[in-house]
């Protein structure tokens, strides 16, 4: 039998196996709560006691980051915000940032998008309007302000290319060819294009090759970008997957309340994270 090419997509057993591929200290790009976060893999990272992770919010982060921060898995967060949306402030992020337990590199959303777009094109930077005069600039020596070479007296800021070690997200479908269907969440494709590796958990495995289907193809991330895949039914829970299940708003509120204190967060972990995944996934 022929050996698989070096860049072939690996099919793994479950979220634990994906989490095992993410080394301590990795820079992981993750989506906001509304855009297919790989929550089952995040819980598996907590269980495997990942340490020193550097999270990149594309462009903001929510519960996935708060869980990892509270569990002591995170050294640094680069993001435009961390919030639980209607459930309020992300309590573990807020306390860790206030006490200086994690480094926070503050960004603004389109600088993150632009940096990833530069990386996916293989160019060193992408210019962006605005941002000048924000105190964010002083905290980001990697952001450079230059004169627009095509005009006169027109300062403009450059977002350096961002190549995260890992892009991590969840998807509704994967297929036997290693493709992933993102649907309307095509911003996730940019993360995968820019990252050195993309690890994706999915709801359902489809037979065949989705790129041969003209209706599915525009929402597909091609297998060339996908390093490893694993099934994780309800793997975005308590966040949602469009047309599969909605956001579990009540659970988010439960989490937000519990995580206000370290003790409450510990008991949340005991109940919902440190137990094996299958035992609690609600129907």
């Amino acid at each position, binding site marked *: 039998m022929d050996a698989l090419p070096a860049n072939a997509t690996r099919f793994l057993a479950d979220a634990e196996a994906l989490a095992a591929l993410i080394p301590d200290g990795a820079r992981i790009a993750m989506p906001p709560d509304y855009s297919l976060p790989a929550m089952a893999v995040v819980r598996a990272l907590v269980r495997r006691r990942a340490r020193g992770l550097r999270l990149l919010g594309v462009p903001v982060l929510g519960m996935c980051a708060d869980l990892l921060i509270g569990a002591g898995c995170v050294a640094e967060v680069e993001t435009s915000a961390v919030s639980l949306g209607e459930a309020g402030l992300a309590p573990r992020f807020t306390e860790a940032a206030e006490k200086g337990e994690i480094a926070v590199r503050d960004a*603004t959303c*389109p*600088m993150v998008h632009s940096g990833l777009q530069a990386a996916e094109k293989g160019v060193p930077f992408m210019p962006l309007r605005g941002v000048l005069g924000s105190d964010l600039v002083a905290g980001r020596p990697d952001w450079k302000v230059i004169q627009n070479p095509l005009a006169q007296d027109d300062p403009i800021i450059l977002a350096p290319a961002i190549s995260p070690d890992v892009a991590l997200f969840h998807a509704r479908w994967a297929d036997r060819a290693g493709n992933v269907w993102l649907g309307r969440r095509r911003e996730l494709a940019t993360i995968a294009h820019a990252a050195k590796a993309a690890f994706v958990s999915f709801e359902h495995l489809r037979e065949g090759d989705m790129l041969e289907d003209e209706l599915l193809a525009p929402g597909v991330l091609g297998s060339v970008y996908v390093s490893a895949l694993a099934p994780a039914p309800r793997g975005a829970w308590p966040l949602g997957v469009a047309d599969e299940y909605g956001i579990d708003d009540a659970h988010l509120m439960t989490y937000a309340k519990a995580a206000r204190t370290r003790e409450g967060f510990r008991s949340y972990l005991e109940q919902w994270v440190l137990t094996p995944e299958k035992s609690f996934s609600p129907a």
Partner: protein
Amino acid sequence: MIARLIGDAAHVAVGAASPIPATACALLAARGRHLRVSLLHKRKGNPFSEGSRELFDLAGQGRIDVFFLGGAQIDGEANVNLVRAEGRRFPGSFGSAFMYFAARRTILFREEHSRRVLVPKVEFVSAPGSSAPGVWRRGGPQALLTGKALFAWQAERRRFRLESVHPGSSLEEVREATGFDFDCDPSVPQTAAPAPEDLALLRGPVAREITANYPAFGSRVWEAGISHSKS
């Protein structure tokens, strides 16, 4: 009030955690006004197929007429702080450092009207209210709306002017609760209350639409409203 401020805009975008601006947009739509509303957090039928990146690209091209920003702190020069204040950490700047420049108009909105929020000078500038000459800037602040009052932004003077005080509040109370200096006519009017037909729309189709996208806000506002009207 927000619906009035939106005025003749053709395309309004609503970003993170802004249920009240979203409610104003839904009210305009319910009145039958032709208005394109791009709600970043819309759960079903979201307007974007490239996530928030598309919102920023639209704004960069000048396709967004009105945007909304809040702030942990807002100062008298319309600077916005979403990062830290008095030792407390807030979520972060979101897209403010870009949208404040690129959207044609920005309505600053914060329910809490206090000296804690409306400060003489923000501790951290997430997004500046004005820019030096020569720095590209398409738009900027239009107004600041709080739970007590409406201020208009005067770009040439780089100061707010008190436009109206909401029913239940007074000029003295607004002065007491505002940490920055502002221009003001001593006979400043009271903010007009919503028309009865608008209230009916707000409690009917608007409530249903907003609750689908902001369930906690919807149940807080409208379930409370229903129980209030029964009592």
